[in-house]
């Protein structure tokens, strides 16, 4: 079944330097990277950013194939952005191509190219984050990083808990969907043919049991959590304490360095 093949921020277990970094460091690095990405104005800056990401992928050993596989779902957006930028960027000189109402200028080609590069680097960088960090660590890190917002009465712990529960149940629900689909197909249900309305109607035998089982699971989970005296984030300690070590500081300095380098390269003004 194709449902199982979805990579949705899938975690690739491993034991590389990138896997071992503190999840908070990795989130901050990603933020630095994105900031640098939006600062970059010329080819040198982009080259530096692309190069550093390639090095990071090599360190993580997740493989370029996995990275490209994750790119597939956003392919359409990338192409769409490229076309829009290509066609709608006004230029000063002579248009490179001109037919009907389409005028493509050199500036358009340049913006489209950099825009595509920017989107791809952006996505790859966040993919790399989820590929090398388990969802649980990721939400833990988010919770601590967003901790200061608690003062503004934002329920950070509850949000993080909701996120980790949601992440935890995605594979379970996919499996469940698969199972119910098979069961209804065995009774002659047809999910693959008919017009849009018929297909939407055919989903009822799938969605009703799915919702019921999701509610049942939620209920069971709530009872199980209460049995273990869960009562929210107040005064709650963690089994796995997050602690920065030397490599985290080094990585953060490197991330900051990347931002400064891109800013400096902008001054050089190549292209």
């Amino acid at each position, binding site marked *: 079944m194709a449902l199982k093949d979805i990579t949705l921020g899938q975690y690739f277990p491993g034991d590389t330097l990138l896997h071992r970094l503190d999840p908070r460091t990795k989130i901050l690095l990603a933020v630095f990277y994105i900031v640098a990405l939006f600062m970059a104005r010329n080819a040198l800056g982009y080259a530096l950013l692309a190069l550093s990401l390639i090095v990071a992928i090599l360190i993580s050993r997740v493989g370029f194939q996995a990275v490209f596989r994750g790119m597939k779902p956003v392919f359409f957006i990338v192409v769409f952005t490229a076309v829009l930028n290509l066609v709608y960027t006004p230029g000063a000189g002579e248009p490179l191509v001109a037919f009907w109402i389409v005028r493509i200028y050199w500036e358009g080609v340049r913006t489209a190219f950099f825009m595509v590069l920017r989107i791809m680097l952006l996505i790859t960088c966040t993919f790399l984050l989820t590929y090398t960090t388990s969802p649980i660590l990721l939400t833990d890190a988010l919770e601590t990083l967003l901790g200061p917002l608690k003062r503004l009465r934002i329920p950070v712990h509850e949000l993080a808990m909701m996120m980790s529960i949601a992440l935890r149940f995605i594979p379970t629900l996919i499996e469940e969907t698969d199972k119910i689909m*098979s069961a209804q197909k065995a009774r*002659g249900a047809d999910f693959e043919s008919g017009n849009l309305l018929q297909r939407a109607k055919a989903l009822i035998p799938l969605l009703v*049991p799915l919702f019921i089982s999701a509610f049942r699971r939620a209920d069971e989970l709530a009872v199980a959590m209460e049995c273990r005296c869960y009562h929210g984030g107040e005064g709650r300690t963690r089994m796995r304490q997050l602690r920065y070590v030397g490599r985290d500081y080094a990585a953060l300095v490197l991330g900051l360095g990347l931002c400064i380098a891109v800013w400096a390269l902008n001054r050089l003004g190549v292209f």
Partner: protein
Amino acid sequence: MTSPIIQTEKLCHTYSAGTPFEHRALIDVDFRAYPGELLGIIGHTGSGKSTLIQHLNGLLKPTSGRVLVEDRDIWESKAATRQARFRVGLVFQYPEYQLFEETVYKDISFGPRNMGLDEKEIDRRVRQAAAFVGLPDKVLDQSPFELSGGQKRRVAIAGVIAMEPAVLILDEPTAGLDPIGVAQIMDNIRDYHAAKNAAIIVISHSMEEMARRVDRLVVVNDGRIPLDGSPREVFAHRAELEAMGLGVPRMTRVFQRLKALGADVDSSVYTVEQAKEAFLSAFRRKGAM
């Protein structure tokens, strides 16, 4: 011998082919089921038994090999696959989780309706299927979600029986039920078998239950069928079964041990009734001496 109603020829199935998660779930499986027989399939978790049954009604497509239902390749055309779904009824594990309609009646009629039958025929089948599984008429207008666990399961089984399949496959139909529920479900299944002369295939890992109720046992292990025969023949291979993590019924174990201790008993028994017979005949022999 009569020709088989379901037959697989060199059936292979590989999950996630070409990825690091590649797993060969079935390897050259030649499986046969004959009309009107009560067949048991045993195998531990991950042996490939669920993969096998999902091929029998065309839910999974073989990686290689063929599946024939009533001598017709079910992947020959779309119509043939659809036909196979109705000829071979498959009841999944915990089938109560597939209920979705507002009333029991509507839920049971889902299968027959998909077959494109007319209202009168649907009504006949729903009522008959409900009777087979012992659901009283007043339940038919209730919501399936108000029923008890055992009743929900019977509704789900009725939903498959209502398609009047020539082969009824049930995956662990009694899992999670109390002893009375187990006996009721097994009786319902037997009633359907007797009334329609359908082939019944039951999957279970409870040796005791299987031994008592089936004519033939098929053992699935590591994607192959190493043992196939009457319960008596299959349980004679105790060492092999135990190596597969399956074991034999308690009665067989007792009698094999008695035999090993030097008692003059028939060690191929597998039910309490047979054990009683074996004891009595052993005593008679002793008395005659």
